[in-house]
């Protein structure tokens, strides 16, 4: 490598623990970053991207984490590994800035925005009092926060997700660093906000002439915003090339797999004479904003506002919207897990007024699969117990019959039934999602609610789960209510779709039509923002 590089990583290896408990998380990776350049570090979760970034910042839990002697990280020729804390602190936040994935946890909830940005400035400059305040305001203006002067005194919880991320960026860029490390900067944000934040980062990068190390798993972001790409897998760097080159001609097999793992295919046709299986009329969900003592609450937040919908047998109804648009709340209300008003007709029978006991036999018809397969399976039950639980509630079958049904359900979702006595933590994310689907399937339901069924999974696994869902729909004539913010998933599975915003349905219709010719501006924005 020539000396022009701003950052030089050579043979970097990161180990955790010693001796028998040693675990190598990053294995012998080398890359370099020039001034003003953007390098994207891509890979699935657990591939060592974030650890690499933390190693550059020297933020790993030393001495539990350690590097073998041949590892080298040079910033402007200066070796960073083993640099004293004092020397490193001069670089951190000053010449190297970093932004984190989760803006809520990365900002201190007890301090105002002004104080947090001022702290960074104070550490590395002599600005004080009025001058400092002006400088802070300048930072906020630079990241284009609306009405920056009033935001000075705001606390993080008073800001929206996108605004918080802007504050984070302002903090990271306050001292005009030469290198910005962005660790999944947009993952926690809605699609429309994602695009704004990435545009902002790109603009600031040009303005300040800094280099950016962009860590992401989102190929859409990579394609639009990076000059070069490094693909990581299980701690190793499998491929490195320019962005255009990589997308046109991926060299490594893994990269090709990663690129091809976009959700594909179209929804299956369903009979046109299908019957309405679930119908909802005027569904309203309200949360009391403030509860006066011993009186009825008077102010409400309306999470779902007069929603009507119809679901036909064998059909998939996609619901899209940003976070907070009420799509998950709507699903919970339809499942009667959230109190609501309005009418819910399940196979022509109104279940809205039934009490929990009368409702129990009906629950069999409607099942749910949640977003996070790590949270939706009880860690203390075996797979057998998890899948059998519903059967024990709804049938009086013998032990053997239940076991047979569990084995059948596991086979149907493509799992090895011999593994049924293991605990969920022994399975991967995709396998766990299959277990969750098996738990729903074993009851022979009519409808399965899929609440972001693929968002917590890596791309390659997403495709498998989508194929499985489509296959099950064909075999059992299932109806799905699919909630997702990922339009590709919606496109691959849905017949009809609803677009929700602030609790209301903005647009609805056949999925193909809504995706091709959106009528509403909001839908158009949503479509434009989703990076392809």
């Amino acid at each position, binding site marked *: 490598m020539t000396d022009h590089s701003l950052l030089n990583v050579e043979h970097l290896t990161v180990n955790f623990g010693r001796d028998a*408990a040693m675990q190598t998380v990053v294995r012998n990776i080398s890359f370099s970053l020039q001034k003003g350049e953007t390098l994207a570090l891509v890979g699935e979760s657990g591939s060592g991207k974030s650890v690499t970034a933390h190693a550059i910042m020297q933020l790993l839990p030393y001495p539990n984490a350690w590097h073998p002697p041949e590892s080298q990280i040079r910033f402007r020729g200066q070796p960073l590994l083993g640099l004293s804390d004092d020397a490193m602190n001069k670089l951190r936040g000053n010449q190297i800035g970093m932004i984190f994935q989760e803006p809520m946890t990365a900002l201190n909830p007890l301090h105002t925005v002004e104080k947090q940005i001022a702290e960074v400035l104070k550490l590395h400059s002599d600005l004080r009092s009025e001058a400092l305040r002006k400088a802070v305001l300048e930072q906020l203006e630079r990241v284009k926060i609306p009405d920056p002067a009033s935001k000075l005194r705001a606390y993080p919880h008073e800001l929206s997700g996108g605004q918080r991320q802007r504050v984070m960026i302002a903090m990271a860029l306050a001292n005009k660093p030469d290198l910005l490390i962005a660790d999944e900067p947009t993952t926690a944000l809605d699609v429309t906000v994602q695009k704004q934040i990435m545009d902002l980062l790109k603009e600031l990068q040009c303005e300040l002439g800094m280099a950016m190390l962009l860590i992401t798993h989102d190929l859409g972001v990579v394609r639009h915003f990076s000059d070069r790409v490094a693909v990581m897998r299980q701690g190793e760097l499998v491929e490195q090339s320019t962005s255009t080159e990589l997308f046109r001609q991926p060299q490594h097999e893994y990269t090709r797999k990663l690129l091809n793992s976009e959700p594909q295919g179209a929804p299956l046709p369903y009979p046109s004479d299908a019957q309405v299986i679930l119908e909802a009329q005027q569904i309203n969900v309200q949360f009391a904003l403030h509860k006066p003592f011993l009186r009825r609450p008077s102010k409400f937040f309306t999470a779902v506002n007069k929603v009507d919908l119809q679901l036909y047998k064998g059909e998939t109804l996609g619901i899209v919207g940003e976070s907070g648009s009420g799509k998950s709340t709507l699903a919970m209300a339809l499942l009667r*897990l959230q109190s609501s008003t309005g009418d819910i007709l399940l196979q022509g029978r109104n279940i809205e007024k039934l009490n929990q006991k009368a409702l129990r036999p009906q629950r069999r018809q409607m099942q*749910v699969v*949640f977003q996070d397969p790590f949270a939706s399976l*009880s860690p203390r039950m075996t797979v057998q117990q998890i899948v059998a639980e519903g059967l024990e509630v709804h049938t009086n079958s013998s032990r053997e019959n239940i076991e047979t049904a569990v084995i059948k359900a596991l086979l149907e979702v493509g799992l090895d039934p011999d593994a049924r006595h293991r*605990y969920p933590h022994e399975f991967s994310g995709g396998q766990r999602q299959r277990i969750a689907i098996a738990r729903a399937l074993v*009851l022979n339901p009519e409808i399965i609610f899929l609440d972001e069924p693929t968002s917590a999974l890596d791309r390659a696994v997403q495709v498998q789960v989508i194929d499985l869902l489509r296959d099950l729909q064909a075999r059992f004539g299932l109806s799905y209510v699919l909630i997702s913010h990922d339009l590709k998933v919606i496109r691959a599975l849905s017949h009809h779709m609803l677009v929700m915003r602030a609790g209301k349905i903005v647009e609805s219709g056949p999925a193909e039509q809504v995706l091709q010719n959106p009528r509403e501006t909001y839908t158009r924005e949503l479509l434009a923002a989703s990076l392809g």
Partner: protein
Amino acid sequence: MKLSPINQRRLTTFRSNRRAWWSLWIFMVIFLLSLGAEMIANDRPLLIRYQGELFFPAFVDYAETDLGGDFETSANYHDPWFREQIESSGWILWPPVRYSYHTHINNLPGPAPTPPSRDNWLGTDDQARDVFARVIYGFRISVLFALLLTFGSAIIGVLVGALQGYYGGRVDLLGQRFLEIWGSLPALFLLIILASIITPNFWWLLGIMLLFNWTSLVDVVRAEFLRGRNLDYVRAARALGVSNGQIMRRHILPNAMVATLTFMPFLLTGAIATLTSLDFLGFGLPPGSASLGELVAQGKNNLHAPWLALSAFGVLSAMLTLLVFIGEGVRDALDPRLINRGRK
């Protein structure tokens, strides 16, 4: 019973903490021995053979006439004449310590309290009773009291905490306010008032302490249930139609048990300390019963007899130290961070 992997890992972590593991063993051995206190320290022989017949005075009340004496009263085996009478046509098997906790020793070498000797290993107290015997019985009653109190409070506390946390809303609000009022009642004064009305025995004390002790676990369990009721797998279970009771028992309680188990050894030490201090103040177990608190009080009143205070201090500190070591071991074994550190 097969342990789930997570519990196996916890057991391994606990066993690898040698201090806690050994403390548990030592404590268990001492406790089991003290359960058979009647076989170790008793003023009645364990076994007598008299005129070809077997007698079990430690367990059966015999009249003197049964064993060749003159009176119809209960036999006094410490009476030298009576003892010779039996040994003349049989033999006597004594326990290692020939005194019970309430035995008044008549033939002491000096005025009570007497210092440790070959007969009275830890000396005698100011009422001419053997301190070693009293310590054994006192240990047993302290641990039993503490165990009952802890399990009783755990059962009530977990139940109340579970209901409050799971149902939330109004149940939780009223429950919390009730706990605040209840927690501010002065338990000690109630005990003092009660002591002037009735003579509190073991069960009275246990009942009253239980009335005020059960609240200690409620907050922890309530917090776990508040968190747990919104977990995805709990919502999935509700969607399956599982009943509330089942959800609480099968899905959320195991999570709350970690916090409960972590607290338990410390509740145990707290309960022992409470009983001891009540006894020390004279509001505890009825006069004459074996209690460590009473021994502490005697030590304070008889500073010229340091073996009293030293015995009480030695036993109490050893017991509490062992329990704290065990508690630390349990806490670390249930700590997810430490478990993950041990994982490959």
